[in-house]
């Protein structure tokens, strides 16, 4: 290359731009077509009716205001169920956290290059995740009876499914130059995962472990179905009696739990970042 003097941009010999837009256009139009199809009531889709919002938003506002009047007298009755729920949630999330580590590392491509075992783990986790919570709860009650055990099993099953899915895909999406270095040093995948991949990706895990804990408090209605009681069952009951003031108290309590977990998650993330 030799130096040239200033000329219009056309003088730069820019290689032709690769044609990616046809494929992109194809993908975008496929998505658009799919979206349109989901909006066609004729084939079972959703009929979007924005007018109803304009007409009836007052109903919603009235309902919301009922929910915004907590009946504090109800608070004492929530303490015991809340503690039960927290206990179950914590133990369930902890067991799930322990199980999720190997499963996640097996399900992510950088930490498990073997496509066979990787697909197998992913498939199993997908199947477990695909079964809705209510079905799990019902089946578990039928299998091991009611009580804390089915509750715990249900929570662990959901949590593992979520953590493995989200963390393994986050690991897939990131770049991991240190893995290459360890591989070049002749390390086994297990060594790499244990000493490098796990600590390096710990923030990803922590995010989802704490989310699982939060989720366990929020979905404690499931614990009601399997006979483990808890705040979710109480909430359903108050809701069934139209006691919105009581429901409001429970929601505020859950909000406190959510905020505390959120704060913990922020602190941990800051420390590990």
């Amino acid at each position, binding site marked *: 290359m030799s130096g040239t003097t200033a000329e219009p941009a056309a003088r730069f010999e820019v290689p032709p731009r690769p044609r990616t837009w046809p494929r992109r256009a194809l993908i975008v139009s496929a998505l658009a077509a799919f979206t349109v199809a989901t909006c066609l009531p004729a084939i079972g889709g959703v009929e979007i009716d924005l007018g109803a919002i304009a007409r009836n938003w007052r109903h919603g506002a009235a309902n919301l205001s009922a929910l915004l009047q907590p009946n504090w007298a109800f608070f004492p009755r929530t303490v015991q169920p809340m503690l039960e729920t927290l206990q179950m949630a914590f133990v369930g999330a902890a067991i799930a956290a322990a199980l999720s580590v190997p499963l996640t590392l097996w399900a992510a491509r950088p930490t498990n290059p073997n496509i066979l075992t990787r697909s197998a783990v992913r498939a199993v986790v997908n199947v477990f995740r695909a079964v809705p919570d209510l079905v799990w709860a019902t089946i578990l009650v039928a299998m091991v009876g*009611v009580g804390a055990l089915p509750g715990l099993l249900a929570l662990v099953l959901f949590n593992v499914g979520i953590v493995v899915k989200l963390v393994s895909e986050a690991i897939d999406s990131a770049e991991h130059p240190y893995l290459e270095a360890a591989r070049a040093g002749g390390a086994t995948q297990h060594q790499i995962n244990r000493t490098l991949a796990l600590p390096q990706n710990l923030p990803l895990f922590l995010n989802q472990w704490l989310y699982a804990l939060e989720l366990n408090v929020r979905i404690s209605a499931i614990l009601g179905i*399997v006979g483990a009681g808890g705040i979710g069952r109480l909430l359903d009951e108050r809701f069934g009696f*139209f006691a919105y003031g009581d429901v409001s108290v429970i929601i505020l309590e859950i909000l406190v739990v959510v905020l505390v977990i959120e704060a913990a998650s922020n602190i941990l993330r800051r420390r590990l970042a």
Partner: protein
Amino acid sequence: GTDAAGSADDGGTEWPESITMSLVPSVEGENLAEALDPLTTYLSDGLGIEVEGVVANNYTATVEALGADQSQVIITDAGSLYQATERYGAELILRDVRFGATSYASVAYTNDPDTYCEDEPVLATYEASDIELSYCNGIEEAGAAATGQGPAAAEVFGDLAGANVALQAATSPAGYQYPVVLMREAGLDTDADITQVPVEGNNNAVLAVANGDAEVGFAYWDARTTVVEEVPDIADKAVAFAYTEMIPNGGVAVTDTLPDDLVAELTQLMDDYADSSPEAADVMFELVGLSDWTAETADDEIARYGEVLEQFAG
């Protein structure tokens, strides 16, 4: 009548173009959306306006939908009928008839007949499904068709002190409210004198008894039939030993925004529905396990149930 949009406002003289009817299955039923179609078609034809049917699975939601005029007709249980009339001035137009009655008993089951039965359990046939089930304390006659008439042997409830008792959600009349009322009447403190095993749903109450998680459980009549596939020897594992007082069946209520003549015509049509065709009779049975609707609404039954309800809602 056919015209008029926004008719809901004008005090019930002009007919709306369409109405929405929401239904909460009062038994754990199959997918009901399909079964609802013949009924709505029948009503649309009869009324000359569009009737849409929606199966919702939440009592509170259907009542609130009625209150917000998002649905004009609800087919639901006694508790929701009470709430709809109390909260939103809904009008009760029909009551469910199941096996010839507008009420049913909650059944007490046990896996320990030695303790809770004074006599040997006997087998009687549950007519709806032709399955033989066990009963004791003389609440049914051996070999006969079970009647499910309560109250019966209710005095045994005093014996429950110290037992593990499976109770459903506090909103459930058969699984919680009526049994608790009886236990309280028998002098038990249901928070202290028994160990509550919380369960959700009638099937799970029966299963909890069958697999030993609880000694006693309560469910509607007769929930044992639904778990026969999983527990073929359910008759041995769960014996019915008492019936509570009769609990009112649900029914049909309409909003106060509908014109009176429309309500009258709708009531008539629904009352006649079960007899309108063999298919309709089938639908009624499959739909909500009903044999019929009756226009004798017996509002006092609902009102009395409302009193029971208030004991627990506080």
